[in-house]
């Protein structure tokens, strides 16, 4: 039997207290317990990056963490990027550059790019490509995603 634990997490600025089974992944916890279904599961084994979120300010794969490990942590998910109706510059750039088609991988790319730009606000194209190389997209061919991140970083793109 899996042990159960009470955890407190802050997600997108809101605090939650929940009783969770130890084996539940952080991704499943966000999706099923907190109804934050913007975080997606593409592989559940740490390769595709669709479940990327920020844990205490750092990009991590929420499928590769247990919910109980996030006790006391501050999380940011895709739902927390926009300020009300005002899109985050990255979100706007993704639309402008047609950087998504089916949209399934998009939250993971946004969160990866968000963490990356915080650390490296003026990246080169090569750095952007490397930064997103741990996220898989099956629709766009990556080029528009690279352009979108450069746009959000304030670089002019064509």
């Amino acid at each position: 039997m899996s042990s159960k634990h009470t955890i407190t997490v802050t997600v997108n600025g809101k605090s939650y207290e929940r009783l969770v089974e130890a084996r539940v992944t952080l991704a499943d916890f966000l999706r099923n317990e907190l109804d934050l279904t913007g975080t997606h599961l593409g592989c559940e084994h740490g390769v595709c990056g669709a479940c990327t979120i920020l844990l205490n300010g750092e990009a991590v794969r929420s499928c590769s963490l247990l919910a109980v490990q996030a006790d006391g942590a501050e999380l940011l998910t895709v739902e927390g990027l926009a300020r009300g109706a005002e899109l985050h510059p990255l979100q706007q750039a993704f639309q402008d550059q047609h950087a998504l088609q089916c949209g399934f991988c998009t939250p993971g790319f946004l969160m990866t790019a968000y963490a990356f730009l915080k650390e490296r606000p003026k990246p080169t194209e090569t750095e952007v490509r490397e930064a997103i190389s741990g996220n898989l997209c099956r629709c766009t061919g990556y080029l528009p995603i690279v352009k979108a991140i450069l746009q959000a970083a304030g670089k002019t793109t064509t």
Partner: protein
Amino acid sequence: MAKPYIGAPIKRREDIRFITGKGTYADDIKLPGMLHAAILRSPRAHARIRSIDTAQARAIPGVVWIFTLKDIGEMAVPVPMRMYKVPGLERYLQPLLARDKVRYMGEPVAVVVAESRYLAEDALDAIEVEYEDLPEVLELRAAMRNEVLVHEENGTNLAAVHEISIGDAARAFEKADYVRREEFRVHRHTGNPMETRGLVANFDVGKRELTAYGMTKLLHYNRQVIASFLKLPEHNLHFIENDIGGGFGIRGELYPEDFLIPFASMRLGRPVKWIEDRREHLMAANHSREVTCELEIAAKKDGTLLALRARIYGNMGAYVRTHGGLVPCSTAALLPGPYRIPNYQCKVHCVITNKTGMGTYRAPGRYESCFFRERMLDMMAADLEIDPVDLRRKNLIQPEEMPYEIGLTRPGTNPTVLDSGNYPSALNRALKEFDYDKLRPLQGRFENGRYHGIGLAYFVKNTGGLEPYEGARVVLRDGPSVTVYLSINVLGQGHETAMAQICADALGVPMDWISVFHGNTDLVPFGWGTFASRGTVMGGSALHLAAQGLKKKILTIAGDHLGAGPAELDLQEGKIYRKGTEAPALDLGKLVALVRHSTMHNQGQPELEETAYFNSNKMTHSYGVHLAHVAVDPETGMVEILKYMVVEDVGRCINPLLVHGQAVGAAVQGIGGTLLEELVYGENGQLLTTTFRDYVLPSSTDVPAIESVVLEEVPSPLNPLGVKGAGEGGMVGTGAALANAVSYALSSLGVEIKELPLSPDKVRALIRRRSAEQAR
């Protein structure tokens, strides 16, 4: 005249929900009382089932029901074929759950329904199945020896044969100055959309109605089949499309799970969700592409093509699935491509093995045949010492020969007719855009430890009337606003935007008045779906016709009101004008109010709407060229793509943002399939690539900045929009162009690519083999 919406790079309206995390994919749907299913799958490739013991699993608290085939009883029909029903294939359909035998690793054996997915998987672990292993057969040639029979009752693994005979190939080969024979092979790989399959079924016991989410692609057809399986009237089923994380052929076809989950919901009277995990996806959802081709070519010594003769073998896996013989048959259908080849003979073999069943993957058969043909042309060019571009130019069908009938190439349908195009012009444009002449001196050159190669491939890609029709309904509402209802589905392409553009132009209203609804069997009573790049060709055309019809209706009413004939009026940007005048004569909002509240207009009917279907059994053909510049490290076999370009004439481009997006995305998928991805079977028929660590998709650092050139030189005469489909052109030529480029790069080492993928291991093996041969 207002500026048309068609052709403008309008940003997608659907993006907002996706970038804010508010999309609704199958796994995001939660219904009260919902249960979770998990499927027990065979770990064996070929075995007899001695017994299934579920007692321990049933005892786990939270496990609600476990069922096997016998629990389905007389309902247990096999999953039917939808298309390419080549006679013979019907003997190899897949049962909903394994009967006495399992025939591939991943075959569903039992279904667990539990209070959570975690518990359902615990129950899977606790089910005990006793298997008696049987020898397996995985490869074509071994299967054709019939020593191991996958379905003993049929006495053979050769499920069906389809033959094509155009002209007199035998005679052409006798007369030819030049003939060459080669065997080519494309490896097994598949679509892998980022969202796996998923399904939520909710049976309302009181109303005996089933609502299901997740079977997107062919909602109407799927509803019809599932209705007959569940013995319910079709109108009691409501199939609803949620947001979909990519299609690529694999999603939305009927699979056993699409029967099992609604069945479970009906039996339990509770909503049931099943979300496929990636491991299941890789072993149970359709595999594709595995086709071998023995190809012979005949030509005059000046390079004029005379004939093709081919034997094509499709490794269909253990069961024939919904696509029937499509993959190998479609390979055969367009093998002659854009060239004038008067004599063509082909025999297609559908061979059953102990692998996962075969279905379509973006540009099915076209990717394969393009590789076979374009590789052969480059080999022939080298033999005859003709420039490969000149060879193609010499044989391309000329614009004045259009429409060009190739002949009867598909089983049970019309002759294949290339509808329209200027093939030489697209080739010239491609060479110019790529700067081919400037790069050509690099051909085969060794620089800084790597060999350079430049390869090209010409492709044609058919779409349109693969299924006969699509429908659209356009309603003018108060506001005024316009609602569009479509029979097609959307799998992530951006139809909510593109279709609004089509409607805005055809009707003459601002685009932001228009809302687009799709993917619900209750919206439009009949339809097929979105596949093979046909969404805009068929659905867009239906919408265009419906909007035009509604416009006519509006102008008639306006004419009555204004005392003018409808021909004297026009509707632009939502306002009615007398032709030749600048000031609007009537506002559309006023007209809506008139109709709504008076019996004087529109024959007393309050609604202003029009439904139209676009019917066609003909195919449009987009065409174009892929060009690749690669550098190959001969010591490691690593292939780097330095430059890649897709040039495609799509007839007419509704939204360049979306069309370029399709081309670039498809090209990267094709590059992945050509360089990285392979479904590999090992000892005892075990599928070895069951995770994304083993099945390797391309990532951002594996691909160059793909260049896409979209041409609109020759609109299709087969539909009112002139479109030819844009979803697959970026994919078709990738295998061929890269294989040609790598072959050029390594030509001084004597390497000729005849098989894909071009993985470092395989490239090294070719170099090793050649150097061993040369040493001898």
